[in-house]
């Protein structure tokens, strides 16, 4: 059953081959399809690299194993941050931008030339970054705080990637405009497009701030200038890094609604409520970069309190709203099928559906990671947790458990729809999502435990010549176990995606492309 009837072709619109999606009834233009798939494939490759680095980090942090030597550990740490926290989400978000501004609006992409240029620059930047990291002279972690210096190619890679992403945003904005001016789309934007637009606006802040941080860092690395003020750099860098994490959060929320729409044909519980939620991200995100400075010298208590703690608490509000709106929307849809008790509607969910598996685990882990982060933006609590393992515990909850798992779930539907091939294995996909969720939950709890007893983050080994406090080894060994579980599940995702692209059965049968999550 189609959601929508595509509008007839519009005079003045660029002529381009298109087809009608057999599942959604949306018109899919050939250029948009190719560009979306290219970005999604690049995203999956970046995730494979980032995941491999991540697994090796987890196995190094386990004191009983210590897989990598310290030098290689710091190299892998840099590669993990760059690949899994920047390249993977941004490539996926560009895929989402192309999809949301074209397929959902019944219009072609504004300019394929800009689209492919953006993609080329992003791939080039990504390769420069990975090359600089693997050469071994850029082990500065993804934050690259001066006076640590990476090779100039590292910063050039960042900048080229950022310019590519900027072009993709420009193309997205013009696609929205041209869909309207050609008459292909009228009325309010669909919710998914609206959310992606909010993410794109935040990304503009992120890129602008990143340029201010990284251009001087490049100049310092190349020897053109003598020094970079480290706290000032930290400010601009987190204007990039923190804001980008909220681009990721917004994109994750879009993926939640996307999964609910495809698996259940469910929308948000209320349009106004949901869109207020998206706007609140725009209002609250940028000042909360202050939460990185809670125990820094130089900034006043007032700045830390307002920018870190108070706005930090407020930034939890939109995420809570979307959690309610997604689950409430699914509940409302399932209740339409007939009367059900308070939790009776849950029996109408097919829990073995890959989208359901990913959505459930993503909501749960994002809630845990979000809570542990929000609590630690309290000025006084940050004194206890800053740069301990509590922090990676928090960020793996929101970024890996929340975002990556939501993207995986969305990809399980989006990729088959776009390449018109059935997922190589639906059962493996659902097992993968649950195993990934379980492994991450295990790892996050172990990291948080290690944080409460003071284990430092980003540290290759923690014996301190036998002086380390007792009680550090057990939680860190458990981190290794969690990383192994999650790493295995991550590999299963990559495997399933690659096999779908090359071996998946060609079909246009809606039930094979997007299996329904509603019990018949």
């Amino acid at each position, binding site marked *: 059953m189609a959601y929508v009837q595509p509008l007839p072709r519009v005079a003045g619109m660029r002529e381009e081959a298109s087809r009608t999606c057999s599942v959604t009834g949306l018109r899919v233009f050939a250029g948009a399809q190719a560009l979306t798939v290219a970005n999604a494939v690049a995203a999956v490759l970046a995730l494979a690299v980032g995941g491999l680095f991540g697994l090796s980090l987890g196995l190094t942090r386990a004191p009983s194993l210590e897989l990598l030597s310290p030098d290689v550990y710091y190299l892998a740490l840099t590669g993990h941050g760059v690949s899994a926290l920047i390249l993977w989400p941004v490539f996926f978000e560009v895929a989402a931008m192309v999809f949301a501004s074209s397929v959902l609006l019944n219009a072609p992409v504004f300019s394929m030339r800009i689209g492919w240029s953006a993609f080329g620059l992003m791939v080039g930047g990504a390769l420069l970054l990975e090359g600089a990291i693997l050469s071994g002279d850029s082990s500065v972690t993804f934050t690259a705080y001066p006076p*640590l210096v990476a090779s100039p190619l590292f910063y050039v890679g960042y900048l080229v990637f950022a310019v590519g992403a900027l072009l993709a945003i420009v193309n997205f904005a013009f696609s929205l405009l041209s869909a309207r001016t050609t008459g292909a789309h009228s009325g309010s934007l669909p919710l998914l497009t609206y959310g992606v637009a909010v993410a794109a606006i935040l990304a503009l802040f992120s890129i602008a701030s990143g340029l201010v941080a990284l251009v001087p860092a490049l100049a310092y690395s190349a020897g053109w200038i003598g020094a970079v003020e480290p*706290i000032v750099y930290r400010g601009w860098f987190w204007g990039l890094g923190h804001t980008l994490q909220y681009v990721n959060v917004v994109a994750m929320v879009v993926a939640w609604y996307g999964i609910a729409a495809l698996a259940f044909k469910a929308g948000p*519980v209320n349009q106004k409520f949901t869109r207020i939620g998206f706007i609140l991200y725009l209002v609250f995100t940028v000042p909360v970069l202050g939460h990185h400075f809670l125990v820094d010298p130089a900034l006043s208590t007032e700045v830390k309190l307002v920018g870190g703690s108070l706005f930090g*608490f407020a930034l939890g509000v939109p995420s809570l709203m979307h959690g309610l709106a997604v689950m409430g929307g699914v509940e409302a*849809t399932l209740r339409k099928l007939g009367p059900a008790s308070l939790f009776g509607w849950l029996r109408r969910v097919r829990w073995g559906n890959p989208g359901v598996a990913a959505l459930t685990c993503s909501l749960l882990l994002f809630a845990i990671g979000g809570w542990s982060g929000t609590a630690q933006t309290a000025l006084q609590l940050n004194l206890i947790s800053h740069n301990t393992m509590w922090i990676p515990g928090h960020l793996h909850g929101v970024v890996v458990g929340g975002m990556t798992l939501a993207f995986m779930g969305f990809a399980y539907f989006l990729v088959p729809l776009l390449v018109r091939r059935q997922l190589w294995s639906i059962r493996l996909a659902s097992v993968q999502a649950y195993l990934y969720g379980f492994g991450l939950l295990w790892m996050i709890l172990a990291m948080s435990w290690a944080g*409460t007893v003071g284990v430092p983050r*980003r540290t290759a080994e923690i014996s301190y010549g036998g002086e380390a406090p007792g009680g550090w080894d057990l939680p860190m060994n458990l981190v290794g176990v969690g990383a192994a579980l999650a790493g295995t599940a991550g590999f299963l995702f990559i495997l399933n995606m690659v096999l779908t692209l090359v071996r998946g059965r060609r079909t246009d049968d809606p039930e094979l492309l997007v299996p329904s999550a509603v019990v018949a």
Partner: protein
Amino acid sequence: MAAVESSVTSPAPGWARRLPIDEKVFLWLVAASVAFMSTFVIAWLFLGSQNVPTDSYRITPEAFSQQVQTFIGKYGGEDGRAHVPPGEDAYMMAGRYIFYPELVLKAGQEYRIWISSMDALHGFSLVGGGQNINLEIAPQHAYGATFTPDKPGEYLIVCNEYCGLGHHGMKGRIIVEEGS
């Protein structure tokens, strides 16, 4: 029950006027919890016994190093540690890959310790004795933490901000002796 909405199509005209009572109640509850947490954090600045230090001043690594040398000249002992008399400010520099010097303090006395970095960003993380206090240490800035050690013992300090390839070996120590 509300009509089922869609995420992939334009919402019906008039959507911007509809916000049901359930969602309004939810928003008020969330706003109340934010207000509660905010009040608590602000109140704790005045009522709490442990807050983020507020003393800091700008100083070059060379000048701070000079302050540390003067401090060691006055209070450095035969054991290579600085024995800080109660009431005196103590100085400690963080540099790849050590916190220097080790400080000897008396339990029950209040001290202010000034810390700055000679090179990269470092993390001052006091982890021994069941304690956990963390500060970001930057070059060009001295950070002054005021506190009263209450239990005698040896307290390990580790660096928890990545500072270079020897980061995992960077440590220091504060020794707290029985108060006189």
